[in-house]
C-alpha cells in the first residue's frame, strides 16, 4: 500500500467512525511514514 493510498483510506475510515479531527494528525503521520520509508533501513527484496 502506498502512503497516498493509506492516507486516503485512513482519513475515510476516521470520518466513517465519526473522527474527522484525525485528518491533520494522519497527514502528519503520513509525513513521518514517508521519511521512514525513504530511509529504507531494512532494504528491499530486489536490493543487490
Amino acid at each position, binding site marked *: *500500500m502506498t502512503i497516498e493510498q*493509506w492516507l486516503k483510506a*485512513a482519513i475515510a*475510515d*476516521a470520518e466513517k467512525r465519526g*473522527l474527522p*479531527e*484525525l485528518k491533520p*494528525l*494522519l497527514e502528519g*503521520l503520513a509525513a*513521518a*511514514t514517508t*521519511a*521512514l*520509508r525513504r*530511509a529504507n*533501513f*531494512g532494504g528491499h527484496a530486489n536490493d543487490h
Partner: protein
Amino acid sequence: MTIEEFGCALREGRTTSASTTDACLKRIAHGNAALNAFILVLADEAREQAAAADRELASGHDRGPLHGVPVSIKDLFDISGTPTTAGSRVREGHIARSDALLITRLRHAGAVIVGKTNLHEFAFGTTNEDSAFGPARHPRDHQRSPGGSSGGSAISVATGMALATLGTDTGGSIRIPAAACGIVGLKPTLGELPSTGSVPLSRTMDHVGPLTQTVTDAWHVFHALRGDSGATALTAPPLTTLRFGVPRAYFCDVLDADVRRAFDASVDMLVRAGASVVDVSIDHASLIASVYTHIGFGDAAAYHAHTLDTMPERYTTPVRIRLEMARYVLAEDYVRALEGRDVLRSEVDGALSGVDALLLPTLPMPAPLIGAATVRIDDIEQPVRNMMLRLTQLFNVTGHPAISLPCGVSGNNLPIGLQVVGGRFQTDVLLGVARAVEGQLG
C-alpha cells in the same frame, strides 16, 4: 533538604523521619491546591511508616541511604490498596492488589511514601495539562507547565513535598519535567529497572527512574530501585580526565536563545575546568521523531485499543484523538521503525566511542505556557509537543542512559536543563560523570 543532608541529620539525631515527613505533608497541604501535584496523599500511612522508620533506627536497624526518606510516586505504579489512576477516568474503580516491584524495593530500602502524583494522562504527553485530575502547574509560574509526563513528581521534589520521586520516561517524561522544574532526572539504561506493576505506554521504550534534587540523591534512589541500596558510594572522576561529545547538528539547531546561552556557558565552564569537548554526529538524527512515533504509537495503540472502543468518553479528548491516530500505524512501518532503532542505536554507540558522555540540552526551551500549542523559537512558531520531545526521545529509542541536571535559568527565571548521556548499561559510570559536571556547574 537533600537525601544526603537528611541522612546526616537523621543519624546525628538532629531530625527524625517523622518530623521530615510531617514537613513534607505540610507543604503538600499548603501548596497542592495551587500546583495540583498530588492525586492522592497518603498522610496517615506516611506518618505510620516514618514513625516505624524512626523506631527501627533507634533499635539499631539502619536500612541505608533511603531509611526514613519521604518519597512520592507517579500514579502509574501500583501501591497495594490504592487506585492506580494513570491520570485517567479510564481506570476508575481500580484498586491495586499488590505493590509494584519497585515500590516493594523502595519500602525495603526504608522509604516513606507520601502520595501519588499527577501526570499527563497515561503518560501520553509532555505537558501534564491533559489529566483527569486537571493540569499540574509549574512551581515558579502557575500559568506554565511543569513538563511531563511526570509533572506532579517533579513539582513534589522541586517544592520539598518529597525528597525524591519515582517517574517513568518513554520519550523524556523524567528528564523533561526535571529540566523544566530545575531538578535532576535520571533515565537509566532500557530494561535496567523493572516496570512490573506499572501502567505501560510503550513496552518497547518505557523506562523507570528517579527525580531528585542532586545527582548523589539520584544515585541513592537508583541503587535502592536496583535492590542494592547503600552497597557502593558514588565517585566522580576528575573533570580533567573527562572527554565529552557534543552532537551539535540537529540537537543544537533549534534552541531558545536562553537555552543556547546556558548550554554554551556550561560547556565552556567544563572546558575551562580541564575537560575535553569534541563535536560528534548522529547521521540519521532527522529520522529520530519518525522512528520514535511509529514505535511508540504502535505500542500505545495495542494497549489502548479495547478501551478506545468500549469507553472512549473516559479519555481526555487530546489523548484520545492521538491514540486513535496511533491505531493507523501499519505493521510494516512499525517494523521499519524497529530497523531504524538499530541504526540509531549504533550511531549513538559510535558517537560515544572515544568520549565519556554526550552533552546536549534537555529541552530546547524553558517551560511552556499551559494550553500553548506552539512556542516561538528564533522567530518561528514550533509545535510544543515536538519541541519538548526533540532532544530526549532518541535515548528512549536507543536505550542509552541519560540524566538531566540544572544548568541555569532563563531571563524570566525558568530553569534550564543540561542532558548527559552515557553508554548502555553504564548508568553508574554516567552518574559519576554527571556528579563531576554538577560539581563544576554548581
